[in-house]
């Protein structure tokens, strides 16, 4: 009797200890998650805080008298004349009218408020509407990058303001009058890279990324899935298969820059493919993504219950039918998830692409797989390395766009998994 009671006592004591351990373990878990979350919050506040201004542009809106004499132009449909015409003068005259205290004498200082590209904008507008010649129109053109920086970051010591004090006063007055305005930066989404921050955009990089991803997906998904099926279902169990398996696992751990070197040596030097093009980028990223896709696809195939295989074999399905009709559909969610995560990894990859020349300064939006291009993370890399702070805010904005792509790809992976998942 005493024996039993003491045993109960021992159990009770050990229970207390066990519960304490459990509570401590749970606290560690919560702490770990809190650290991870706060790191994430710090990262996002920093990027968003620095980058949200990248999504706005500064413009000048004013009434412009499109006088033919002033522009040396009497027919807006004549291309030759359009090439020679002066499009700066009408804008400058219009701006001088808006700036209080500005005269012909300080026209240089006033002109520096206009974006060098503004005259091109005016030419394009006139080309689209030739009948505007000789009339007065209310037009909106881009402001100079220095004006952009001043309008957004006037009090910020991190930014150096390049405008003179008089120019600063003018801009203050123009903002008050509503001539200088900030609005949504459509230029950022509709143009390629540029030396001028206020005209630089990510469209070229986004299209480059898209083309590269298409090449990567088209190559790596079928090859990866086929390799996984072969290794999992058909390969004989021997030394060679073991060797291949070990090496696939090793490949997954190879630093990505090595794949870049390989791409440079094999695709560009040996096969003579052009540099900086999405096809080569896609090939390199395919090599990098393949191990991930193979490993996740094999895991997905392994998780198909053997009872389903047996059931199909028991009715007389051939090996191929078992794989195609039963194993693949059940393994598909896992395969897709693995592939999308692999693609997301490839989308964020920079190092190997630097080596194959996708780091070049490319203004044009690429029109095909064999045209020079850059990709989003490399664009971020380029801008982040720029000494001009106006590029830094665009780099942060580009990071946000990249993150948005990555998050939506991962959401797609989760969604697909939920949708295709079947229970048995």
């Amino acid at each position, binding site marked *: 009797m005493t024996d039993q009671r003491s045993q109960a006592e021992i159990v009770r004591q050990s229970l207390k200890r066990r519960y304490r351990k459990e509570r401590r373990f749970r606290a560690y878990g919560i702490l770990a998650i809190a650290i991870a979350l706060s790191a994430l919050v710090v990262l996002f506040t920093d990027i968003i805080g620095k980058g949200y201004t990248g999504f706005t542009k500064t413009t000048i809106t004013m009434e412009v008298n499109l006088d033919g004499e002033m522009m040396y132009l009497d027919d807006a449909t004549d291309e030759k004349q359009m090439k020679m015409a002066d499009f700066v003068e009408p804008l400058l005259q219009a701006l001088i009218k808006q700036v209080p205290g500005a005269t012909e004498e300080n026209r240089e200082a006033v002109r520096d408020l206009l974006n060098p590209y503004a005259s091109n904008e005016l030419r394009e507008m006139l080309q689209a509407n030739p009948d505007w010649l000789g009339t007065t129109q209310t037009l909106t053109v881009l402001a100079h990058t220095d004006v952009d920086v001043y309008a957004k970051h006037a009090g910020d010591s991190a930014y150096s303001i390049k405008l003179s004090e008089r120019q600063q006063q003018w801009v203050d007055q123009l903002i008050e009058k509503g001539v200088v305005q900030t609005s949504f930066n459509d230029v950022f989404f509709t143009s390629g890279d540029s030396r001028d921050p206020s005209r630089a955009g990510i469209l070229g990089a986004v299209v480059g990324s898209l083309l590269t991803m298409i090449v990567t997906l088209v190559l790596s998904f079928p090859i990866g899935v086929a390799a996984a099926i072969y290794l*999992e279902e058909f390969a004989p169990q021997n030394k060679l298969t073991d060797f291949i398996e070990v090496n696939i696992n090793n490949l997954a751990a190879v630093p990505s820059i090595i794949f870049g070197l390989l791409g440079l040596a094999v695709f560009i030097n040996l096969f003579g493919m052009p540099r900086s093009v999405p096809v080569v980028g896609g090939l390199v990223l395919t090599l990098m993504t393949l191990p991930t896709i193979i490993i996740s696809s094999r895991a997905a195939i392994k998780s198909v219950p053997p009872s389903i295989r047996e059931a199909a074999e028991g009715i*007389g399905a051939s090996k191929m039918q078992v794989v195609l009709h039963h194993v693949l559909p059940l393994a598909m969610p896992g395969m897709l998830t693995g592939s999308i995560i692999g693609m997301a990894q490839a989308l964020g990859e920079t190092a190997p692409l630097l080596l194959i020349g996708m780091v070049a300064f490319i203004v044009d939006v690429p029109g095909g797989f064999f045209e020079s291009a850059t990709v989003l993370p490399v664009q971020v890399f380029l801008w982040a390395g720029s000494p001009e702070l106006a590029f830094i805010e665009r780099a942060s904005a580009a990071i946000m766009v990249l993150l948005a792509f990555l998050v939506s790809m991962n959401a797609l992976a989760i969604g697909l998994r939920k949708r295709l998942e079947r229970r048995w």
Partner: protein
Amino acid sequence: MNTINPAVTSEADQYQAEPVAPVREQPEETIIEEGKTVGRPFADNAKFKLRDVNVSYGDTRAIKNISLDVAKNEVIAFIGPSGCGKSTFLRCLNRMNDSIEICKVTGSLQLDDQDIYDRRRDVVELRARVGMVFQKPNPFPKSIYDNVAYGPRIHGLANRKSDLDEIVENSLRKAGLWGEVKDRLDATATGMSGGQQQRLCIARAIAVSPEVILMDEPCSALDPIATARVEELMAEMSESYTIVIVTHSMQQAARVSNRTAYFHLGHLVEVNETNKVFTSPEHELTESYITGRFG
């Protein structure tokens, strides 16, 4: 390091482990003489003619020199303690052991006087003739209709949709499931109860019109009512099919089978008419087993 095919190895583990499972009060090894079977192992109208069959997993011998006939349209039950090799032996009959690489089968196994393990033998054709129902109900995660229609589809048994509909209906009727599912053929099969799923698996096996149906403990995952339903079904099916059933329930063997074979540690100890095995067993091991002294 991982092995190449985990499905295979896990199966192998499962069946490999069986022969070494200890048996309580293990009688002296000398009582069994290898290759010697008491009773009536042979039949005149044999569907399966099995002679000197040996099965080994690597170094472990799972089946030791078994000879047996399975007669046409009979129901034969394999009984015996866990790990005695009855499931392994059953799986030899439609070569389900093929996928286990370390499994080796020797001896002569004939179905209608044709060698099952012949190198030229097409295993797909064999399995179309020898269907199988497994221990755990394993319907495909598809609709009820597609489950039953799968076999006929892959074997090309029906050219028109109406033919296929007919096969599905007949199979479900034979499996006693038609009344319960005729209004929801498009419902997913995994949503059915365990007993219904197992009868669906039987319907699926019947749909390709096999000559033999192998059943590996078909009722071990079912409740008594579902078990009774499946047993009824077996009695009806025995008119048109040859049935080989592995069971742990001696009552079940007694209820459904014409003949009963008693396995012990890879040996086939005794084969006889079912009522003879259960009323006056000839071998002392059989007697110990059916009286519940071990197993």
